[in-house]
């Protein structure tokens, strides 16, 4: 009896997404020392990094919802 199994580690989309977002939350792509414009007193680059961090959290939510299906609880009769 074969069930449909999904694991994040086996999905190329998950790896690509994680690598891209990892690159975006690391601020290597801004000129060193640059901080203007400020948005509500926060340097623009920090706002972008925070935005990328939120994107990473949202991506994690998507991965958990769609890429993780092991049926581990089926043996126990749980849903």
């Amino acid at each position, binding site marked *: *009896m*074969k*069930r449909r*199994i999904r*694991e*994040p*580690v086996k999905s190329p989309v*998950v790896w690509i997404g*994680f690598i891209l977002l*990892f690159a975006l*939350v*690391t*601020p*290597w792509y*801004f*000129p*060193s*020392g*640059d*901080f203007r414009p*400020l948005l*509500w*007193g*926060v*340097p623009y*680059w*920090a706002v972008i*990094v*925070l935005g*990328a*961090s*939120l994107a*990473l*959290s949202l991506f*994690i*939510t998507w*991965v*958990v*919802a769609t890429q*993780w299906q*092991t*049926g*581990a*609880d089926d*043996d*126990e009769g*749980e*849903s």
Partner: protein
Amino acid sequence: MNVELAFGGGSGILVLLLYGGLMLAVGLFAYLRNRGVRESLDEYYLGGRGLGVMVLFFTFFATQYSGNTVVGYPPTAYRLGYQYLVSVPFFIMIIMVYLLFAPRLYALGRRFSLLTPVDWIDLRFRSKKVTILAGILMLYGLGNYLLEQFVAIGQGVSGLTGGTIPYQVGVVFFIVIMVAYSWLGGMRSVAYTDTIQGIALLFGVFTLLLGSLYYFGDLSHAAEIMAETAPEKLGAPDSGGVTTWFCLLVLVGIGAAIYPHAFQRIFSARSERTLKRSFVRMAYMPFLTAGVVFMVGIIGIGAFPALSTGESEQLVGMLANALANQNAFFYWAMVLLFGGVIAAIVSTADSVLLTFSSIVSHDLYGRYVAPEASEYRKILVGKLVGVVAVIILVLIAWYPPGTIYQIFVLKFEVLIQTAPALILGLYWRRLNTQAVFVGMLAGTIVAALFTFTGFRPLGVFSGLWGLLLNLILCVGGTLWQSAAVSEQQKADEILAWQR
């Protein structure tokens, strides 16, 4: 600058006593609801594998965020400015790393009734020396982690009560309470108290943020001061800063996800769905916890510019004192905040102690010393060894033994050496047991030597050098000679978990 005792003293003692009483009540509640808790390893150490979303979420929260997040992070943000914004994504990284191994680990945990991380290593490799080495490394790392928490409890209690309660009394009081509620209800007690402690901490940091915003000005005010006096705190990091940022993301991501107490929590989820929902919530907590304390540090730059490094360590105390002087609401909110900080340290310590005892009960005593013993007896041995370890650690915390003190510093450096066995073992059927053992041992020796001698080539952390060597030996050894066919067949049977 007078920052002492604007609050604390009697009120601090009252709040600590209330916290202590509440924790004991929770332990008693957990015990009365599950009378059989001390008869079964699963019940005692994993809460009967029945933790629901909210409680599971808070136990993960307690393993990742301790009192240090609240007291130690704002001063760092104060000194580094926006370069320390890395503290938000590095907590998200932990969840990302979990997703690379937790789904399979949870499924295997259910199928083989795994209890501890060492249990998994034993199932996968069937090698006494690998199991014992991993067990010892974990006990050693956890012991030192516990020691650090005890020192922090003592300092926190002494600080909150303005020295009214001496360091030693604070440590003993909270350790007795912690051991009592852990003994009463096991994992359920720990998880329920983690929930209360987590809520207290969140309430405290949000009040601190709101009060700071109201009384000390917003981020724009802090930005004006930084632009004038220290523009490097606003600026994007240079190449050195980016390297540090990168290292922190990798180190914290992998390190915190494979801490034994964090790893073990995966087994205690009621269902896969529960585990998934807890992880999703955890993915957003960095904004509400690390992000909030980061903002507090930045506001501190506007409130108290030009503090020295030593003075900046007291930043949270200064802000809290200043707020406590404003009105009764903030006075009590700040007392609760500091109570919450201590509670958060206790909640990290109790998780570590429980995992420590579980490895003794199940993996060392139960596997090698007395496999026939009843589960009740195994739990009892784990508890007693845990208490003996606690007593030794408390003595060390009081009388630090000068020259050999460094051996108590190793934690993460040692724990991370078990990562290849734990994680590669999940996916690589050809993994050679001998190579795993040699890698783990060599990685530990290198990490320890580099730490003791202060040798840090390229500025990279000693634990990572150990891990690199560990991985080279583990992967290289396996590529050179795969596991024997019979071993691969056994691995296949285990890893064919989807059936």
